[in-house]
C-alpha cells in the first residue's frame, strides 16, 4: 500500500499527471499516449496484485479507507492538466495548450478546468478497454481478494455485497408536465372522493316518496324567546350584578330558559328522538303497570285449582322447552333432567300424595259423603302420578313409536286410563298402559286392600263403571277402526305426526279438565255420562281430523312413488264392486283421450272418485309405458317417427321425448283446441223471436215458423281464418282494431313483466274506489315546492345531518351511548371539509 501511495505521489509530483490506479475508475486523466498508459497500468496492477498476495495481513477495511482518502488526497493535490487529444488535429492541441497556459496563470481556474476535462471524454474508451481488459482493476477484483481473506468480518462482506447489488443512480427529477400531471391526478382523486360523499344523500333523495322543497325547513311553531331577542344586553348596574352572579353560578345569561346542561341535552336529542324516546318510556311504563297488576291479580286468586293448572302449564312449558334445550344445550339439559329425576325419586320414596297420611285418612272417611273430599284425594293421587311419571324424552318417544301397539295408548288421555284401571285385563289396550305405569299397576290392588279408598274411588268412578261396558264397547269399536287405519298408516308415521298426537293429547286433556270442572258441579250420573260421551266424541273428532290431515298430506305427495305405495295401502278396497270399479278405470284410462263421450260409470261414490284420482297418480309408471295414440297429421311432430335408420342417440332422444309426452296426447289436444277456436269464431244465429207478438201466445204454443225464420238473424260469415290452411298453428283473431287503439302496444320501460304492468293498471287510484286517506297517499306528488320560498342548493349541513341520521340508524340499538362521540366525529369532519 505504501508503495502505491508513494508511486502515486511520485507520479503526481514528477509528471504532473494523475493516475488513479487504485480505484480503477475512469477518473484518471490520461496525458500520454494510450500505449504508455496501458503499460503503466499493467505494471501497477501487477504490483498491486503482488502486494496483496504477499501481504495478506493488512486490514482490508483500512485499505478501503485508505483508498478513499487517497482519492481525496489525489484530487486535492493533483494539478490536472488536460490531456492532449490523440487523434485530434494540431489546432486542437494548440488550443488546448493555450488553454493550459491560461489556466496556469490563475490557480483557481485551473481546477475547474481540470474537472471539466475528464479523460473519458477525450480518450476513446473503447480502444482502451478492448486491449486492456484483463488489466483493468475493478472494485470487484478487490472484493474478490477480500473474500479470500478470513480476517474480513461478515458484516463488511454483506455491506459490500449490498453495495454491489445497489448499483443505482438517483432518478433524474421528472419533467414539469409530468409533475403537473401527477399533481393534477392527486388533486382530482381528492376532490372526486370529496364529491362522492354526497352519493348516499343523492340516492336517498331519488328514492324518496316525497320531497318537500326547501329541504331543510325549520320546524314551525314558537321559537324560544332568547332566539328572538338576541341583541339584549345588561346595562344597569343591578342587571350587571345579577348577571355576574348568574355567571358565577353557571346559570344561563343570554339564554334564561335553559341551563348549559339542558342545552346540551337538547342538542344531544333532537325532537324526533325525544318523541321516540318518550313513546318508548310510555310503553315501558304501561307494560310495567300492566304486569304489576297482573301479578297482583294472580296472587290474589285463591283457587287452588287455578294454581294447580298454572303449575301444570308451567311444567308442560318446561318440558317443551326442555326438548329444545336438549338440542341446543345438552349439558344444562342433562342437569335439569337429573333434577327432575331426583324429584321423581324423592316422590317415589316418600309417602306424600299417596293418600296414606292422617289428612287422607280423615278425608277418606269424609269422602263417602263429601264430593270435595273425594276430589281432593283424587288430586293428591294425580299429583303423585304426575311427579312420578318418567320424563319422556324424544328418544324414548321414538322408541315407543316404533311399535305401534305400545305407542297407541299415548294418544289417549290419562283420564281414560284412570277410568278403567285393570277392569278388563284381557284388553290389550289397557294392558299396554298398565305394564308401563307402575302406579296404575298398584292402583287396582288398592281398592282390594284399602276399603275406604275403594269406596271413595267407587264413588268417583261409580257412574262410569255402571256404564263401563257400553263405553268400553264404544272404545273398542273405535279402537278397532283406528287399528285398521293405523295398520295402513304405519309406514307413514313420522315425527310430524308425533307432534300432532301430542297436540291432540293436550287438546284432549284440556277437554278433560273442562269436563272435570263441569263434573264438580254436576252430581247427576246421566249428565256425567253425557259429558263423557261428549268427550269421547271430541276425542274421536280430533283423531279423525288428524287422520284427514294425514290423508291430505298424502294426496299432496302423490307424485312420489313411496307415497303412492302408501296410498294404495291406505284405502282398503272394501267390496268387490270397488275392485271392479278400479279395473274399469284402468281399462277406461287408455281410451280416454279418444273417447269424446265419457263412459257412464256405474254408481260411483265420492270415495270411489277420490280413489280413482289417486289411482291415476299412482299408476303413472304404468301409464308411461303405454303407447300414445298416434294421429297422423301432416307437419306434426310425430313425423319424426318416420325417420328411418336414425342413429342410436337419436332414438334414445326420441324415447325420452316419447316418454315425457306419453301421458298427454299433445296433438289431439291441440286439434281439439283449434276446433274450439274455430267454433267460437263462427257466427252464431241470434234468435230474436218474441212469442206472443203478432199472434197468439200461451202454454204449449210455439211461434210460427215464418216468424221464427224472420227473426232469426244470421250474421255475415267472418273472413276466412288466417290459420285455415295451417295445420299446426292457431292464429288468434280476437284482436279488435277499435280497441287496440287504446291499448298499450309494448311493455313500457320500468316494467319487466306484463303482469306487473297489468297489476298497476288495474289498481284504481281515484276517490271512487279508495278511501280518502288512501287517495291522499296514492296521489301524493313526488316533489312539492312551497310558494315563494327560495330553494337553496344543498349545503354541507344537510350532508352532516344525513350522515348522522344514517349512523344513528346503524346503531339503533344503543342510541344514547354513542350520541356524544358521533357529534364529535361529525364536527371533526366538518372542520376538515372547511379546511
Amino acid at each position, binding site marked *: 500500500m505504501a508503495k502505491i501511495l508513494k508511486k502515486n505521489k511520485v507520479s503526481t509530483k514528477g509528471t504532473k499527471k494523475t493516475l488513479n490506479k487504485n480505484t480503477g475508475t475512469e477518473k484518471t486523466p490520461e496525458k500520454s499516449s494510450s500505449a504508455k498508459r496501458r503499460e503503466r497500468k499493467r505494471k501497477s496492477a501487477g504490483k498491486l496484485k503482488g502486494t496483496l498476495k504477499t501481504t495478506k495481513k493488512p486490514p482490508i477495511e483500512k485499505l478501503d479507507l485508505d483508498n478513499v482518502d487517497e482519492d481525496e488526497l489525489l484530487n486535492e493535490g493533483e494539478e490536472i492538466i488536460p490531456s492532449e487529444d490523440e487523434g485530434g488535429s494540431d489546432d486542437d492541441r494548440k488550443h488546448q495548450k493555450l488553454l493550459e497556459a491560461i489556466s496556469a496563470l490563475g490557480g483557481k481556474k485551473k481546477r475547474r478546468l481540470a474537472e471539466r476535462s475528464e479523460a473519458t471524454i477525450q480518450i476513446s474508451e473503447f480502444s482502451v478497454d478492448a486491449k486492456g481488459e484483463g488489466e483493468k482493476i475493478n472494485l470487484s477484483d478487490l472484493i474478490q481478494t477480500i473474500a479470500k481473506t478470513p480476517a474480513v468480518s461478515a458484516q463488511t462482506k454483506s455491506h459490500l455485497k449490498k453495495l454491489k447489488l445497489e448499483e443505482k443512480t438517483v432518478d433524474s427529477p421528472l419533467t414539469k408536465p409530468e409533475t403537473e400531471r401527477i399533481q393534477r391526478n392527486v*388533486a382530482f382523486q381528492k376532490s372526486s372522493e370529496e364529491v362522492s360523499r354526497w352519493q348516499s344523500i343523492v340516492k336517498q333523495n331519488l328514492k324518496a316518496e316525497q320531497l318537500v322543497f326547501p329541504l331543510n325547513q325549520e320546524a314551525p311553531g314558537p321559537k324560544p324567546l332568547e332566539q328572538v331577542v338576541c341583541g339584549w344586553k345588561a346595562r344597569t348596574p343591578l342587571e350587571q350584578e345579577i348577571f355576574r352572579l348568574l355567571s358565577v353560578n353557571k346559570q344561563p345569561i343570554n339564554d334564561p330558559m335553559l341551563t348549559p346542561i339542558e342545552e346540551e341535552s337538547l342538542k344531544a336529542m333532537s325532537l324526533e328522538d325525544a318523541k321516540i324516546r318518550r313513546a318508548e318510556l310510555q310503553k315501558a311504563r304501561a307494560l310495567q303497570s300492566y304486569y304489576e297488576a297482573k301479578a297482583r291479580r294472580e296472587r290474589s286468586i285463591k283457587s287452588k285449582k287455578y294454581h294447580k293448572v298454572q303449575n301444570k302449564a308451567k311444567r308442560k312449558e318446561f318440558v317443551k322447552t326442555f326438548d329444545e334445550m336438549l338440542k341446543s344445550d345438552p349439558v344444562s339439559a342433562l342437569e335439569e333432567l337429573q333434577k327432575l329425576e331426583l324429584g321423581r325419586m324423592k316422590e317415589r320414596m316418600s309417602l306424600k300424595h299417596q293418600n296414606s297420611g292422617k289428612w287422607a285418612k280423615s278425608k277418606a272417611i269424609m269422602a263417602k259423603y263429601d264430593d270435595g273430599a273425594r276430589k281432593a284425594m283424587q288430586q293428591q293421587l294425580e299429583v303423585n302420578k304426575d311427579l312420578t311419571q318418567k320424563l319422556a324424552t324424544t328418544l324414548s318417544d321414538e322408541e315407543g313409536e316404533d311399535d305401534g301397539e305400545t305407542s297407541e295408548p299415548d294418544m289417549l288421555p290419562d283420564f281414560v286410563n284412570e277410568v278403567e284401571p285393570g277392569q278388563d285385563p284381557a284388553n290389550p289396550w289397557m294392558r299396554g298402559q298398565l305394564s308401563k305405569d307402575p302406579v296404575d299397576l298398584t292402583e287396582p290392588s288398592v281398592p282390594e286392600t284399602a276399603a275406604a279408598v275403594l269406596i271413595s274411588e267407587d264413588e268417583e268412578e261409580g257412574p262410569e263403571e255402571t256404564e263401563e261396558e257400553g263405553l268400553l264397547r264404544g272404545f273398542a269399536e273405535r279402537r278397532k277402526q283406528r287399528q285398521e287405519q293405523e295398520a295402513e298408516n304405519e309406514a307413514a308415521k313420522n315425527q310430524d305426526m308425533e307432534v300432532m298426537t301430542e297436540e291432540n293429547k293436550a287438546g284432549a286433556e284440556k277437554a278433560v279438565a273442562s269436563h272435570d270442572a263441569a263434573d264438580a258441579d254436576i252430581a247427576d250420573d246421566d249428565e256425567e255420562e253425557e259429558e263423557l260421551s261428549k268427550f269421547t266424541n271430541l276425542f274421536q273428532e280430533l283423531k279423525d281430523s288428524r287422520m284427514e290431515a294425514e290423508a291430505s298430506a298424502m294426496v299432496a305427495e302423490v307424485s312420489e312413488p313411496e307415497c303412492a305405495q302408501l296410498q294404495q295401502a291406505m284405502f282398503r278396497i272394501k267390496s268387490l264392486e270397488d275392485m271392479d270399479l278400479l279395473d274399469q278405470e284402468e281399462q277406461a284410462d287408455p281410451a280416454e283421450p279418444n273417447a269424446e263421450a265419457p263412459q257412464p260409470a256405474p254408481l260411483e261414490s265420492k270415495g270411489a272418485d277420490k280413489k280413482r284420482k289417486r289411482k291415476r297418480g299412482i299408476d303413472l309408471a304404468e301409464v308411461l309405458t303405454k303407447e300414445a295414440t298416434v294421429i297422423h297429421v301432416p307437419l306434426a311432430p310425430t313425423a319424426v317417427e318416420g325417420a328411418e335408420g336414425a342413429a342410436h342417440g337419436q332414438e334414445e332422444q326420441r324415447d325420452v321425448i316419447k316418454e315425457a309426452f306419453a301421458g298427454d296426447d299433445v296433438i289431439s289436444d291441440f286439434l281439439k283446441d283449434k276446433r274450439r277456436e274455430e267454433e267460437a269464431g263462427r257466427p252464431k244465429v241470434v234468435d230474436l223471436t218474441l212469442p206472443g207478438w203478432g199472434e197468439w201466445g200461451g202454454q204449449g204454443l210455439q211461434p210460427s215458423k215464418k216468424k221464427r225464420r224472420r227473426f232469426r238473424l244470421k250474421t255475415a260469415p267472418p273472413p276466412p281464418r288466417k290459420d285455415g290452411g295451417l295445420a299446426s298453428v292457431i292464429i288468434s283473431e280476437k284482436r279488435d282494431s277499435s280497441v287496440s*287503439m287504446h291499448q298499450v302496444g309494448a311493455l313500457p320501460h320500468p316494467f319487466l313483466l306484463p303482469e306487473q304492468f297489468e297489476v298497476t293498471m288495474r289498481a284504481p287510484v281515484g276517490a271512487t274506489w279508495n278511501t280518502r286517506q288512501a287517495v291522499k297517499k296514492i296521489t301524493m306528488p313526488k316533489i312539492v315546492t312551497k310558494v315563494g320560498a327560495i330553494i337553496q342548493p344543498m349545503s354541507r349541513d344537510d350532508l352532516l345531518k344525513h350522515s348522522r341520521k344514517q349512523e344513528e340508524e346503524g346503531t339503533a340499538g344503543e342510541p344514547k351511548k354513542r350520541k356524544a362521540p358521533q357529534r364529535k366525529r361529525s364536527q371533526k369532519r366538518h372542520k376538515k371539509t372547511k379546511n
Partner: protein
Amino acid sequence: MKVKVLSRNPDDYVRETKYDIQRVPRNYDPALNPFEVPREYTRAMNATKLERVLAKPFLASLDGHRDAVNCMAKHSTSLSTLLSGACDGEVKVWNLTKHNCVRTIQAHEGFVRGMVVRFCGTSFYSIGDDKTIKQWNMEAPGYGVEEEPINTILGKTVFTGLDHHQKNGTFATCGQTVDIWDEQRSTPIRSFSWGVESFSSVRFNPVETELLASCASDRSIVLYDMRESMPLKKVIMTMRSNTLSWNPMEAYYFTCANEDYNLYTYDMRYLEKPVTVHMDHVSAVLDVDYSPTGREFVSASFDKSIRIFPKEKRNSREVYHTKRMQHVVCVKWSADNKYVMSGSDEMNIRLWKANAAEKLGVLSHREKLAANYNQKLKEKFQYHPKVKRIARHRHLPKHIFTEAKEHTVMREARRRKESNVRKHSKPGAVPMLSEREKHVVAVVK
C-alpha cells in the same frame, strides 16, 4: 272507569263551505263501483286534454333594453328581482311581480359579459368588454345621485364569464385564464391556465363550493379546485361547449350546453362519457340553468326556443317559443322552482311558467287534491297511445319543425352509412359506439 264512546271526525262528514257537495259516506265495494280501469282511463284522457288546453306558459315580456340581452342574474335572496345586462353595456334591475324596470345602470362600454349577485344579496358584480369588473350596490342611489360602482377592478384582458362563491367573499372570472379573486384584493389570488387561451364561462359548484368548471374554446371543459394550484381534469369534446350548470342538489353532476345542438350531463368523477345526452334543439345551445330542485333544467338555444329537460331524460318535456322571440342568449330558472326567465336577442326578457299548465296562486284544498289526482292519472296512463299522443303534442314554429325533421333524416343517414361501413370492413375494425361515447374526444388528466 273509561267509557268508550263512538266518535267521528267532523271533517269526514261536514263540508267545507255550503257550496260544497254534501259529504256522503261511501261504500267502496268494487262490485258496486265497476269499470274502474275504463273510467279512470277516460278521466286520464280528460286530464291530459285539459292540461294541454290550460298550458299557457308565457306570462310576461319585460322590455326596456336597447340592445340584445346578453346575460342575466337571479337575486340570491329576493325572488322578485332579476338583473339583466345588455350588449350596449346597460344593466337593468327588474321587478318581476310588477313587470317593470326598477333601475338602469350604464355599467360598461361594450357588452356586459356576465353578472352575478353576491350570496348575501347586498351587491352584485358585472364584467364587460371594457376589461373591468365592477361591484355595484343592490340599493339604488338616492334621487339625483349618480350611479357609481362600489369597486372597479381593471383587468389586463377581456373577461367573458363570472361567478360568485356560494358562501365566501371570493369570485371567479374567466377570459384568457380562469382567475379566482378575493373581494378585498385587486389582483386574482389564483389563476389557472392549461394550454388554452380563452374560456367562455366559469361556474362554481353550488354544493361542493370549492369546485369550479369552465368551458374553454378548445372544445374542452376543465374542472378546478379553488384550493389547488392546478386544474383537476379536462374533457375534450367534438364541439365547443358554451356554458355549463351544476346540479344544485347533486354535487357531482353538471350539464353543459354544446354547439352541436346537444346538452350533455356529466358526472364529474367519470368524464369518459356523459351520463346523458339531451338532444332536441336544432341549433347551438347557448345557455343552461338547473331548476333549484335539481330534477330538471332549462336550455336556451340559437334556434329561438327554450326547452325544459328532465335531468335523466334524453328528450325534452317542454318547448317554449313565441313568434317574436329571437335567438335566446340566456335563461334562468327562478329560485322557487316556479318560473323560467329568458333573455333573447330582440331585447326582451320573457317570463314563463316552469309547468305550463300549472295554476298559479293559492289553491283550495279540493283544487289541490284534484290536481294531484289528475297528475297521478296522467302518470298512470302515460303509456297508452292516445294519452301519449295528446300529452306529447307540441306546436313548433315551422323552421324548428322542418329542421328537426331534417336532423332526423341526417341522423338516420349517418347511422346507415356507419352500419354500411361496418358491414364492409373487417369485423371489429369499426366498433359500435353509443351516442354517449361519440361526442367525447379525450379526457386529459
